[in-house]
C-alpha cells in the first residue's frame, strides 16, 4: 500500500525527480510535491477534467494516471503556458476578453485540453471547440465565453500554442 519508488520526469521543460508512493496520482504529485497548484481536483473519477495536464503532448486526466506512470515522460501544466500573470499567451488573453473564467477552478484543465487540440488543429470551428470542451465540466460559465474566446483566437490569426518546450525538434 505504501511502497515508494523514485521517478524522473520533465515538468514544463524542467527535469524533476521525486520519491512517490505507488498509489500517488499524477495530479497529487504535481500539486503536493511540486507545488504546482494550478491543476485542480474536481471529482477524482475522471469526469470533470479539472486535473487535465499534457503528457507527451496529449491531454490526460491527472487523477486517473499514477505518478509512477509519468516516469520518463514530458508533463505540461497550466503554469507552463505563460511566464507570469502579466504575460498571458494569446489564448489566455482571449479568455480574459470574452469572460471565459469565473471561479477559475476548471480553467487550468480546460486551457490544457484546448492547447493540445489547437496544436493538432489550429483553426477549429465551433462544433469542434465544443467537442474539445466536452471533456470538462464548468459550473459557472455555461461555456459560451470560452467558445467565443477560442473563436476570437482563430479569427485573429494569432499563432496557436506551439509545440511544447520539451518536444524533440
Amino acid at each position, binding site marked *: 500500500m505504501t511502497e515508494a519508488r523514485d521517478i524522473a520526469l520533465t515538468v514544463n521543460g524542467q527535469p524533476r525527480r521525486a520519491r512517490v508512493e505507488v498509489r500517488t496520482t499524477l495530479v497529487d504529485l504535481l500539486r503536493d510535491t511540486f507545488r504546482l497548484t494550478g491543476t485542480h481536483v474536481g471529482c477524482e473519477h475522471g469526469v470533470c477534467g479539472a486535473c487535465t495536464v499534457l503528457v507527451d503532448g496529449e491531454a490526460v486526466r491527472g487523477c486517473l494516471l499514477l505518478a509512477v506512470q509519468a516516469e520518463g515522460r514530458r508533463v505540461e501544466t497550466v*503554469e507552463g503556458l505563460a511566464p507570469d500573470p502579466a504575460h498571458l499567451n494569446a489564448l489566455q488573453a482571449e479568455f480574459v476578453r470574452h469572460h471565459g473564467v469565473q471561479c477559475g477552478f476548471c480553467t487550468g484543465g480546460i486551457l490544457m485540453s484546448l492547447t493540445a487540440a489547437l496544436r493538432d488543429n489550429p483553426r477549429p470551428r465551433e462544433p469542434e471547440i465544443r467537442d474539445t470542451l466536452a471533456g470538462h465540466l464548468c459550473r459557472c460559465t455555461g461555456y459560451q465565453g470560452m467558445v467565443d474566446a477560442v473563436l476570437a483566437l482563430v479569427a485573429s490569426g494569432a499563432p496557436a500554442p506551439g509545440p511544447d518546450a520539451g518536444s524533440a525538434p
Partner: protein
Amino acid sequence: MTEPAAHPAARTSGGGYIGAPIPRREDARLLTGRGTFVDDLEMPGVAHAAMVRSPHAHARVRRIGTAAALALPGVLAVVTAADIADIQKPWPARMPSPVPGTLVRHGARHTLPPDKVRHAGEVVAAVVAESRALAEDACDLVTVDYDVLPVVASPAAALAPGAALVYEELGDNIAAHIVQRVGQPERAFAAADHTLRETFRVMRGGSHSMEGRGVVARYDQALDAFTVWDATQAPHAIRAMLAYLFDLPDHRVRVIAPPDIGGGLGPKASFYPEEALVCWLARRLRRPVKWIEDRLEHFVSAGQEREQVHTVEIAFSRDGTLLALRDVFTHDIGMYGALVAPVITACTVPGPYRIPNIHSELRAVYTNLPPTSAVRGAGRPQGVLVMERMMDRMAEALGLDAAEVRTRNLIPADAFPYPVGLWFRDGAPLTYDSGNYPELLRQALARADYAQARREQAGLRAQGRYRGIGVAICVEGVGLGPFEGAILRLDRRGRVVVTSGAPPQGQGYQTTFAQIAADAVGVRYEDVDVVTGDTDAIPYGVGSFASRVTANAGPAILEAGGVLREKILAVAAHLLEAAPADLEIVGAAVRVRGLPDRGVPLAQVAHLGNAGVAFGMIMPGGLPVGLEASAYFTPSQAGYSASAHVCILDVDPDTGEVAIVRYVVGHDCGNVINPLIVEGQILGGVAHGLSNALYEEAFYDEEGQNLARSFLDYPLPSAREMPRVEMFHLTTPSPINPLGVKGAGEAGTLPVPAAVAGAVEDALRPLGVRVTRLPLNPARISDLIHGA
C-alpha cells in the same frame, strides 16, 4: 491583492467606470495557475483530516472502535462525539419564520451526533493523519456498531401515520407549516368561469461547484485564537458559529475566505460539522489541520435542494384573466436545513402577474436525507415552473396563445411599487420595487421572432415533426439585506483599498468593487485594491448568496467612498493652501482646478493624513486623521429583478432527445456595474437551469441511500449540450439603493425549467403529453410519449 491592470480600464461615455465592460482583474492569476484556493495554501506542518461517515440513513450509534485506526503509523488522532464534549452544544436555530404567526420547528443538531445519525453520510468520527491517504486508510479501520432504525426517505413517508421521527422531541416530522393568504381565494374559486388543477414534482439537485467544501484551521495557543481558512460564502456567519461552539469572543476567531473559491452556489453559505471538527483538532494537535471535501462527500453531505411536490389550482375568467391561485406544497428539508428555499418558492409563484386572491401553503418536512440549503436559484425555479406551467394550461384551455395569456395578466409598468400581499424571506412584505414586464416580454418575443417561430412550428407539425416553443417570465427577489459593509482607505502608496465582508466565488468583486470605489472616490480604477472575506479586516458582514452583494456592498462602497473623498480633499487643501471645493483628483494626484501645476500626489496626502507630519508633531488644526471611512448599507427591502426566456426546441419522438434550436434571454436587473460580468452570471445561470431541466436528478432509495453519487450517474451538461444563448437587457433601476442595482447571480437559472417544460409539452401537444415532472431526460420523455 494588488493586481494593477496592464492597460487603463475602459470608462463609460460619461467618464465613469460604473457600467463599463471592464475585463476582470481576477483572470490573469486564474489563467496562469496562480490562483489561491483553500487546498493550495502553503501550510507548514499541516495534518490531514478525513471523515468516518454513517452508511445508514437512520441509526443509533452504539459503539465506535478506534484502536485499530489509532495503531496505524502516521495516524495522529481519531475523535468521536464523546471526545469533543466541550463543543457539543445544540446548533442554534437557523431562521425564524418570516411570516408572522406561522410555525417553524428546529430539531437540535450537534457537531457529531450524540445519539443517532439522521442521514447516510453523516459524520460520526474524524481521523487526522500525516496525509489524506493515510487518514482515509484509517477511516476504514474505525468500527462503528449501529442499531439501524426505520428510515423516512421522502416527505410522503415522513408524513405517513406512525412514521419514524427524525427528531423525537418534535413529535412529528413537520419543520414548518406556513400559510399565507391574499384576498378571498375560496370565494374567487367558487365564482370563477374556469378552474384548473395540477400536481408537479420538481427536483433541483446539488450545487456541484467544481471545488468542494474545504477548510484549514490553525490554533495559536498563546493567544487562544483560531485562524480558519474556509471556502465559505459567509465567513462572518462561520465565525459566529465557531465562537459560539468554542465559547470564544469573535475577535479570537478569524475566518478568512481565500481569495479564490471554486464556486459556491448555495451550500457553502451553511455551517457544517467539518468546520468545527477541524478547529477542534487543530487545537488538540497544536498543528494546522486541513479537510478537503471530495466529490463523493459532496454528493452525500453538502447542502442540496430536493424535491418539492406542488398541487396548484388557478381560477380564471373566459377572457383569460387570472382570478385566484392556490398552491399547496411540501418541501423535503432533509435532516437539517434552512427554510430559505421553500419560503422563497412560495413568494416566487405569483411572479409577474396580477393575482387578487392567493392561498399559499408550505409544509417543510424533515426526512432522513442529507441536509438542504439553497442552490443557485434557491427555491425560485420551482415557483416559476409551477406558475408558468399553469399559464400554459390556461392558454390551452382557452385556445389562446401562450404569450398572449401572459401578456393579458402582467402587472402593468405603471403599477410600481407593487404589493403582492405575501411576506418575503427577508421578513418584509413582498413588494416589487420596479420593473417593466410587458416590455420585457415584448422584446423577448421580438428577439425570438415569435410569430414567425409559431408559423414554422405549424409547418413542421404538418410534416409530423415535434417543434415546441416555451415562454417563461418571472420576478426574482434579490439584493436581500440585512446589510453589507465597506471600509475604504487611502493607503501609504496613495492607493484606495476597499475592504468588504462577503467573499466572491467567481463573481468578480475585485473588479466590480474597484469600479464602484473608483467612481465614488474619483480615482483611477487601476489605483484601487479590493480585499474581501476576512473577518479581521471588517468586523461585520453577511455573505455571498441571494444575489445580494452588489445591492448591499455596492451602496456601502459608494457611501464610504464619498466620505473618503472629502477627507482626502480636506487634507490636500491644507497641503495646497486652497479650498477643498477648488480641488479635483486627477490620476494619482490632487490638483487645484484650473491650475494644472499646483498639485500633490495622493501618496503625500496619505502621508500627512495617516501618519502626521512627523512623530511627535501636532497635526495641523482641524484636519481629519486617518484617511478611512466605513459604511454599512441596509436596504429597506429586497429588490426584484425580472427575466423573460423563450426556448425553441425539437423533440425526437424515437429517442426522447431534446435539441434546442434557439434560446433567448431577456433580463432586467436594474443598473449594471459591469455588463461583461452580468452576462457571464446569466449564462452560467442558464446552464444551471438547463441542467435542472434536462439532466440532473438525485435518486434516493427507501433506505435513504443516494444512488447517484458520481458524475457518471449524475450528469451535468458540457459545452456540447449547451445551446448558444441570445441575450438582451432591459434596465429599470431600483429605487431601493443609490446605485439603482438589483441582482443577477441566480437570474439565469429561474425560468429555464419552466421554459423547457413548456416547450416540450408544446412540442408533444399533438400526442397529448402532460409535463408535470423534471428533469426531462430522454428516458422520461420516452415514457411520456408512450404513456400518452
